[in-house]
């Protein structure tokens, strides 16, 4: 009886929440937008150094957000790595012996790397960019990890720390340099906008892939001596 009451109250709360939100959406939809953002963006796209509007927003107009985002990602990666037992970073127990899977990996890991490079390159004038390329790069690392291809570079050593910190530090360096050069924080000089954005995108890709891969790898694995679920009563 009490459970029914709890569910009923929760359903009522959620329905009220949905109703209020829907009403708000309806009212906002009735009013016109105060500024025409797409128009404003299209006017200023030439000054940004890239041709794709979303990349321009991410890495030029709203690059402060992206800087904070990569900061959050690095913090999450550090937190994840600190949870890991060091033994789980490379696990010979995970190595596959299945020939089909092995062949699949040999074909797919290079394909994914090429795809990541393509997406990064496409980001300047087409959909694509650092985030998507970073996700695909991380996925290729996950693929290697799933089949147990040893990844020595992911030991908590120099390369991992370097990869984690690279994106954030280069981004911050550019920001501080532009602030010292006289203009505002993170305002690129217009002549250098394109190469700067390119450099930042490359290091961001690398860093995002490292963070995601490190977070995936640092989850504790089932050990053989661990009691499996269902047999320890």
């Amino acid at each position, binding site marked *: 009886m009490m459970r029914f009451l709890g569910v009923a109250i929760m359903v009522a709360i959620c329905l009220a929440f949905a109703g209020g939100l829907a009403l708000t959406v309806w009212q906002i939809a009735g009013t016109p937008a105060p500024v025409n953002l797409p128009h404003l963006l299209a006017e200023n796209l030439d000054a940004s150094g890239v041709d794709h509007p979303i990349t321009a927003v991410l890495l030029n107009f709203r690059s402060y957000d992206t800087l904070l985002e990569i900061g959050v990602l690095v913090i999450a990666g550090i937190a994840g790595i600190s949870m890991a037992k060091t033994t789980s970073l490379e696990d010979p127990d995970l190595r596959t*012996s299945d020939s089909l899977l092995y062949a699949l990996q040999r074909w797919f890991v290079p394909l994914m790397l090429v795809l990541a490079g393509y997406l990064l390159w496409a980001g300047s004038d*087409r*959909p694509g960019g650092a985030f998507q390329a970073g996700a695909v790069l991380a996925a290729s690392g996950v*693929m290697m990890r*799933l089949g147990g291809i040893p990844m020595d570079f992911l030991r908590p050593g120099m390369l991992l720390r370097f990869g984690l910190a690279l994106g954030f530090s280069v981004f911050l360096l550019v920001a501080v340099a532009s602030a010292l050069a006289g203009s505002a924080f993170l305002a690129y000089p217009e002549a250098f906008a394109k190469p700067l954005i390119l450099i930042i995108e490359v290091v961001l890709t690398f860093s995002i892939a490292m963070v995601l891969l490190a977070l995936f790898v640092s989850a504790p694995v089932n050990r053989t001596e661990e009691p499996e679920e269902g047999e320890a009563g």
Partner: protein
Amino acid sequence: MTLILNAVAAFLLLTLLIALIRIWRGPAPADRMLASQLFGTTGVALLLLLAHAQAMPALMDVALTLAVLSVLAIVAFVTRVVRIDRPSSGRKAGDQPETHHD
């Protein structure tokens, strides 16, 4: 032409809705996983259709990414859930997750 493409896209979405039933009911984990792979392949077809219908060639890249990355879920399934290999890890035979019914 756009009308036909959209109609075919709607039909493919209907197929996906039917695949949902298989995910929900499929007795074995492998049934559910294969149905979700159907989502991947049909999703690629849908994306290619919509790329023509909406005149957005960038959607081809999305279809390519989806096609490459939806393999990842099935690799995770066979290596981590079903565990097709592991001859040397000394696990008991009863450890293999058998088909379990609801």
